[in-house]
């Protein structure tokens, strides 16, 4: 396919510059495919998002079906948006821009295809497993181990394709956008692998190798950096390519962009612990997180200002060109989110905001504003180019812009309000020194109108998105798709006295092979080293803290399956308002058998750390069957199927064995006797319920869940 014209020009005595014009084609098919997937999954992800938002206003929308309850589909929403909508979006943007800044076709068409279809299969498997309750419970890393392995493999395919393209580039200089893409690839690979270490129990069940505080730390190191390197760096890279193209003027300062990149990379990786302030994490680690979070504001704002100043003297263009409008709002949202981020990591502000809707508002400014709007801008710019035509309707695009912008405002403002208000209500004491709102539910019902308002915001945003889909479909219809875009590049090659090209060395396949094998080998090595390293460190520190009984262990897995941790925390911070409400604050020694940790990150319901013994078994029975029967006005879903479903104990022993290998002290005799132990405990709970005139078979799921809830936080009380 590649044609070469050779023109040689004599230069200095020993040096020659060879000038060739090479003709080749850009691959637009992968860009189109990823782009299409972005739009489809954007729609799905937003629809699910709107549903979960409405469920908090109208709990009937949980439909009393396991597959559609909040706890199971909230992860579906986050995964669909992050990995399907944004994920496909960045691949589309990267595949388009990378080929052009490198002046070459993607390294391999086959890898592009494997990457595309592999990624869609991963999304499909997520869409099936999450509603079924197959989850690890770790936020944004919920998918079970076989899917995790698939993600790692496909990610490496992407990486080889990316680095291969950069290596065979025709432009000596690597444009700054490509640097951002490289950082995305390398860092996400490492984060994903480290956070996903788990021991399988069965094909679809595994336990994190880390326990309690350690698991929490790894999770939020991952969570934070996933935001940095999945939701931020690729977007900044795309900004540095698409914004200048859209405005048809160079970036304000290329120097600043390089500075932006390198400082961001070096600072971001250290800020993770700001997700765990006031938790039982050592203080110095928390402070480290805070310091780096505050420093992060410099590169973030540097990047935003660089983008906005690119448009200096061209604001007339912005008012005409809708893609630029989307870009401006996107960058503004980025600026807001990156200003707020450091703010939220200050301890005093975090004390109010953590566990509330404030954080939900914060991430949506980022997701709807920064990520969403930039993807929309790129879509409006790209589709006409891919289809060799003009945008179908500028006015519809304008409508979308306004619906989207209002949507963001209507979403964010009520949620900030809700978060701030609820955070303060939780802390409020009367002059007599008792909690002003001792009933948690009261603080919930106060914010429900704000939840309703944010659903309106979400609806606006979604409506705008639908308008865009129509507009883009019409655009594609009137154009014709350009699968392979012919282009040419002039290549200057220095021939040294030995007659070798500098880039010939670069293009060597062995180098690529070496890099990829290095990646694979290091993954393999880490997989072996880390677990052994960590198991040793699970040394009990509080004598009275004991492993879960077999029944409680099964109950805990049901808690994970139903996603209770999406609404309930298990982490009491050392504030008077919290110890008053929930009991003694949490200590790291209490979590040593928690594989995975279940601290949660959002209190839509109250903390459950000290739930054990708070209510009788019967209360939980009725409450789980129908939450409003015990707590009128509750927005907790009903879990009536727990009363019907038989508890699956086929894996109980296997689970205990895995736990044992992770350092939980179950003796062999206890594991062998697990079924009897489980049955005895279940019978005792059933008998207790019977005394309250509740007839339930001891082998039902609800018994296990009650056993777990009644165990929560009770060990330290024995001290």
């Amino acid at each position, binding site marked *: 396919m590649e044609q070469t014209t050779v023109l040689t020009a004599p230069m200095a005595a020993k040096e020659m510059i060879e000038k060739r014009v090479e003709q080749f084609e850009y691959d637009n098919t992968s860009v189109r495919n990823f782009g299409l997937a972005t739009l489809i999954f954007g729609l799905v992800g937003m629809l699910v998002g709107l549903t979960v938002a409405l469920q908090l206003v109208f709990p009937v929308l949980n439909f009393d079906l396991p597959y559609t309850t909040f706890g199971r589909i909230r992860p579906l929403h986050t995964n669909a948006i992050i990995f399907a909508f944004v994920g496909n979006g960045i691949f589309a943007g990267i595949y388009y821009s990378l080929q052009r800044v490198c002046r070459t076709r993607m390294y391999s068409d086959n890898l592009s295809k494997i990457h595309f279809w592999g990624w869609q299969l991963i999304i499909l498997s997520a869409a099936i497993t999450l509603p079924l309750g197959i989850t690890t419970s770790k936020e944004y890393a919920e998918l079970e181990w076989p899917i995790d392995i698939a993600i790692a493999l496909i990610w490496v395919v992407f990486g080889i394709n990316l680095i291969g393209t950069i290596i065979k580039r025709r432009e000596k*200089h690597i444009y700054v956008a490509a640097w951002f893409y490289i950082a995305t690839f390398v860092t996400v690979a490492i984060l994903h692998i480290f956070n996903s270490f788990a021991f399988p129990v069965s094909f679809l069940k595994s336990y994190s190798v880390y326990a309690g505080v350690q698991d929490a730390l*790894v999770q939020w190191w991952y969570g934070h950096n996933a935001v940095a390197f999945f939701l931020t760096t690729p977007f900044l890279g795309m900004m540095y390519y698409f914004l200048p*193209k859209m405005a048809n003027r*160079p970036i304000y300062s290329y120097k600043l*962009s390089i500075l932006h990149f390198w400082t961001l990379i070096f600072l971001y990786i250290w800020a993770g612990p700001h997700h765990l302030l006031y938790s039982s994490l050592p203080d110095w680690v928390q402070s480290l997180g805070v310091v780096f979070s505050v420093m992060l504001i410099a590169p973030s704002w540097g990047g935003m200002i660089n983008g906005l100043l690119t448009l200096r003297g061209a604001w007339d263009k912005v008012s005409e060109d809708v893609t630029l409008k989307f870009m401006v709002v996107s960058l503004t949202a980025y600026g807001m989110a990156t200003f707020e981020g450091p703010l939220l990591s200050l301890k005093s502000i975090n004390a109010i905001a953590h566990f509330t809707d404030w954080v939900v508002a914060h991430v949506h400014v980022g997701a709807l504003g920064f990520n969403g709007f930039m993807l929309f801008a790129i879509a409006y710019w790209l589709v006409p180019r891919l289809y060799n035509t003009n945008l179908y309707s500028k006015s519809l695009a304008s409508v979308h812009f306004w619906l989207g912008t209002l949507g963001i405002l209507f979403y964010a403002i009520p949620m900030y309000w809700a978060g701030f208000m609820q955070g303060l209500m939780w802390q409020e004491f009367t002059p007599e020194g008792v909690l002003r709102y001792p009933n948690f539910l009261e603080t919930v019902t106060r914010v429900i109108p704000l939840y309703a308002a944010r659903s309106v915001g979400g609806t606006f945003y979604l409506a705008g998105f639908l308008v865009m889909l129509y507009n883009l479909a019409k655009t594609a219809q009137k154009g014709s798709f350009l699968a392979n875009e012919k282009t040419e590049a002039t290549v200057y090659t220095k021939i040294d006295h030995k007659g070798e090209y500098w880039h010939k060395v670069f293009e060597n396949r062995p180098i690529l092979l070496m890099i990829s094998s290095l990646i694979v080998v290091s993954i393999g090595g880490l997989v072996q080293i880390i677990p052994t390293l960590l198991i040793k460190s699970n040394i009990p520190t509080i004598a009275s803290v004991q492993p879960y009984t077999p029944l409680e262990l099964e109950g805990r897995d049901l808690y994970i399956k139903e996603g209770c941790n999406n609404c309930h925390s298990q982490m009491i911070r050392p504030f008077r308002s919290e110890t008053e409400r929930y009991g003694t604050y949490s200590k790291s020694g209490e979590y040593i058998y928690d594989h995975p940790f279940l601290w949660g990150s959002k209190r839509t319901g109250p903390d459950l750390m000290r739930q054990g013994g708070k209510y009788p078994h019967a209360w939980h029975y009725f409450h789980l069957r129908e939450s409003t029967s015990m707590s009128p006005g509750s927005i907790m879903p009903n879990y009536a199927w727990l009363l019907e479903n038989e508890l699956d104990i086929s894996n109980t022993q296997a689970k205990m064995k895995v736990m044992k290998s992770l350092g939980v002290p179950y003796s062999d005799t206890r594991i062998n006797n697990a079924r009897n132990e489980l049955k005895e405990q279940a019978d005792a709970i059933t008998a207790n319920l019977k005394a309250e005139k509740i007839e339930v078979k001891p082998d039902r799921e609800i018994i296990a869940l009650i056993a777990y809830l009644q165990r929560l936080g009770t060990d330290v009380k024995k001290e």
Partner: protein
Amino acid sequence: MEIIYVLLSVSLSISLLFLGIFIYNLRKGQFDDDYTPSVRILFDDKKK
């Protein structure tokens, strides 16, 4: 809390890796020209 040291060393390795990449590319002259690349990308898709 051994995990802290694991994470610190992983984070540090990532940073060092990027530092290495940075220094290597600095020497290679990747960052010598801090203007033309920004203009050049505007002309990358001229169809002929």
